[in-house]
């Protein structure tokens, strides 16, 4: 008989059963059976039941022997029945998993399919449409702060233009003390690091701010109640260069220190004594501003090629785990441009009556730290490869964030950079770090309409602001230096023409 083979699988014979034992077969291979003829006795956890044949036909195969325990859903008997191939089964063959879109592992061949059997094997997810993005891909929600996952904190804001941070009164930024928050583990006192193993304590808007600024909250000391990290703490950390962001120039802004000692608050105004870092910074700024005649020049550059370079470098295996940001490239460009314009790397020694030109570059990075404005510097930056320079920048900013900047870091600087772009600022007139001849302020990278190959295109644009000591540097030298840096950022390949 030219029949079709039909397979009958063990149904759930009670509610929620997973298996049954074949007690005995009433039929043998080759037997002809009628519909509903008893073909087997089967024992479940609940009862011994008779199995009626679901088909009229010939027994083609008995898949299991008596005494065998069979899982619900496993093949039991194959029948050869008359009828065209591919005809739907007369019973049991309900919608397949594929029809319903249900998980593929679950194939209810019967309505009563019983409880799922615990299967061995490693559990796996089903593939998703966006599976390719899952690992190391772009993250629509902003820079991932997940340890061990792709996405380096700070990389996103360094690429995208950062919105200007609204100035907020400190009182708003510090939430009311959570007096009744759980008595569970918590920092012992304000300002101390969070308890080991816990996430840093902060509020969602502050977390968002930190993410946008590329700040790792784990490394920000909290000054709020119970060690809560406030909006001001994140801004301070950002100014200090935490997470690779760089502080604004001394002249643009400097966040107040967090010390409340001696502060008087009348409601309408708050008076604090001039002392400590604030006093020191003020003296240095006045000395610089009124000793060195400042000239500031501006240059706006299409840095799209630089941003593309950063993207390529990040993807290269050699730079795995290395933080590359626009600051890294600007620092490198500055070192290269200094070789052609060494007067920018010099010092007016009034006492000795000398002009000292340095043959090395100790590159200062302005940073707002928990202690106040500091300008630690990278020693012999001219010797460093891009990768080493990136490493030094990271180390310097981490030490500044942690308040561990040492005296050696702070002394001997020859030229400085300040990154005001992290605040969404385009340009400014930075004041020289005392004793240095130049300071470069880098503005925000903005997507702007720009002339490109004869057309208007949306390009990444940055403004550079260079202040120099006109006693040491003439306009021509300063202008060439700034133009060189701009040329490298506009076309990193220009480096080949300069070295």
């Amino acid at each position, binding site marked *: 008989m030219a029949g079709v083979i039909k397979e009958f699988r063990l149904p*759930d014979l*009670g*509610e*929620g*059963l997973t*298996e049954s034992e074949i007690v005995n077969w009433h039929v043998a291979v080759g037997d002809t059976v009628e519909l509903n003829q008893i073909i087997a006795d089967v024992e479940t*956890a*609940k009862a011994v039941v008779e199995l009626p044949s679901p088909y009229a036909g010939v027994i083609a195969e008995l898949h299991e022997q008596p005494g065998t325990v069979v899982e619900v859903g496993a093949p039991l008997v194959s029948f050869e029945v008359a009828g065209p191939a591919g005809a739907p089964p007369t019973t049991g063959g*309900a*919608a397949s998993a594929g029809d*319903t*879109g*249900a*998980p593929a592992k*679950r194939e*209810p061949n*019967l*309505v*009563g*399919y*019983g*409880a*799922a*059997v*615990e299967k061995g094997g*490693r*559990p*796996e*997810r*089903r593939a*998703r449409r*966006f599976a390719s*993005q*899952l*690992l190391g*891909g772009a*993250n*629509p*929600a902003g820079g*991932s*702060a*997940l*340890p*061990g*996952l792709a996405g380096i904190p700070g990389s996103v804001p360094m690429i995208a233009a950062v919105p200007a941070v609204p100035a907020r009164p400190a009182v708003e930024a510090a939430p009311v003390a*959570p007096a009744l*928050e*759980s008595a*569970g*583990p918590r920092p012992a006192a304000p300002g101390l690091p969070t308890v080991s*193993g*816990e*996430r*840093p*304590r*902060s*509020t*969602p808007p502050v*977390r968002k701010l930190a993410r946008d600024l590329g700040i790792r909250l784990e490394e920000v000391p909290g000054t709020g109640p119970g060690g*809560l990290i406030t909006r001001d703490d994140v801004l301070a950390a950002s100014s200090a260069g935490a997470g690779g962001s760089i502080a604004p120039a001394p002249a643009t802004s400097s966040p107040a220190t967090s010390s409340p000692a001696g502060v008087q608050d009348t409601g309408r105004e708050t008076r604090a004594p001039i002392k400590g870092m604030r006093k020191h910074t003020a003296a240095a700024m006045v000395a610089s501003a009124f000793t060195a005649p400042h000239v500031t020049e501006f240059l706006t550059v299409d840095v799209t090629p630089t941003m593309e370079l950063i993207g390529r470098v990040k993807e290269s295996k050699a730079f795995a785990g290395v933080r590359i940001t626009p600051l890294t490239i600007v620092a490198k460009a500055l070192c290269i441009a200094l070789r052609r314009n060494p007067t920018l790397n010099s010092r007016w020694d009034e006492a000795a009556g000398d002009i000292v030109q340095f043959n090395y570059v100790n590159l200062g990075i302005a940073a707002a730290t928990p202690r106040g404005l500091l300008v630690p510097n990278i020693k012999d930056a001219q010797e460093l490869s891009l990768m080493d320079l990136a490493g030094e920048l990271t180390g310097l900013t981490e030490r500044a964030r942690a308040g561990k900047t040492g005296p050696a870091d702070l002394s001997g600087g020859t030229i400085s950079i300040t990154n005001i772009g992290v605040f969404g600022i385009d340009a400014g007139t930075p004041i020289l770090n005392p004793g240095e001849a130049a300071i470069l302020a880098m503005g925000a990278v903005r997507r702007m309409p720009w002339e490109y190959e004869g057309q208007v295109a949306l390009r990444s644009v940055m403004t550079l602001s260079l202040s120099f000591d006109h006693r040491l540097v003439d306009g021509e030298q300063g202008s060439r230096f700034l133009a060189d840096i701009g040329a490298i950022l506009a076309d990193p390949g220009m480096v080949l023409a300069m070295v």
Partner: protein
Amino acid sequence: MSTLTFGRAINAGLRRAMDNDPKVILMGEDIGKLGGVFRITDGLQKDFGAHRVLDTPLAEAGIMGTAVGMAYRGYRPVVEIQFDGFIYPAFDQIVCQVAKIHYRTQGAVKMPITIRVPFGGGIGSPEHHSESPEAYFTHTSGLRVISPSNPQDAYTMIQQAISSDDPVLYFEPKRRYHVKGEVDEGSDPAASSMEKACVVTEGSDVTLVTYGPLVPTARDAAVAAGDDGVSVEVIDLRSLAPIDFETVEASVRKTGRLVITHEAAQSGGLGAEIAASITERCFYHLEHAPVRVTGFDIPYPYSKLEFHHLPDLDRILDGVDRVLGRPNSLSGLER
């Protein structure tokens, strides 16, 4: 140690509780000669007698109300509700009487009643046989609500429930009745608490909270997530009222991210309570709003559709992706 199925572990726990205290009696439909429709009480009437294992008339309010009277008389009734969806006729007796008599009588009358409820879906049954009504009871003061997820807990927690002087709803994940596991039948139930949550998989990136039938699913999800580079900590609540929020809180303080999964409908459910409580307790540690992965707000669907309703590994991991800000099914909807 012996290897028992989940169902046999409950049976063994019942047997031990009945051995230890002659005031423990079982009441329910078909629990005597038949041993219950899931055979959980198999053999107990034969061994303890019809006066201790009572086949009752088919009236859930009647069973519960007479259990109250038994408790008044000093007994510790263990009531079997045959299926989750059959508990509603007894609802008034549970919430108005069982739950409140201790309070009403200012502690004079105790209600040490254990209400066993096979619950949850996944076995292909018709309506009323696959429900998850636990939130009705966790919302009712005076009740304690627990749900074991493995044979050892099933064995220990049934004894703890019976020895509790307060009424306890003991929700049994019926689709796990046939899961086998090691059970230490000599263990002392008094040595542990049925109200302590258990970290069943340690992790550092996301806290995944669940109970009962979804615990194995959550553990599988943690393994699969681990293969994706995400470290998921799975917490088996065990107790649903009260919830051991201290354990959940300690985990979320570490991970900053919380996903809750249960079969029951979402709105007004336990997930909402957990999300709210943890947000209140750990607001400053949260990196993302807590996410619920639950059954839909629908009557329990017919069985061909139930695996759309029931959270599974992939839906749970979609929730994990959400709290991580990774691409997920709602990407673009969330801000």
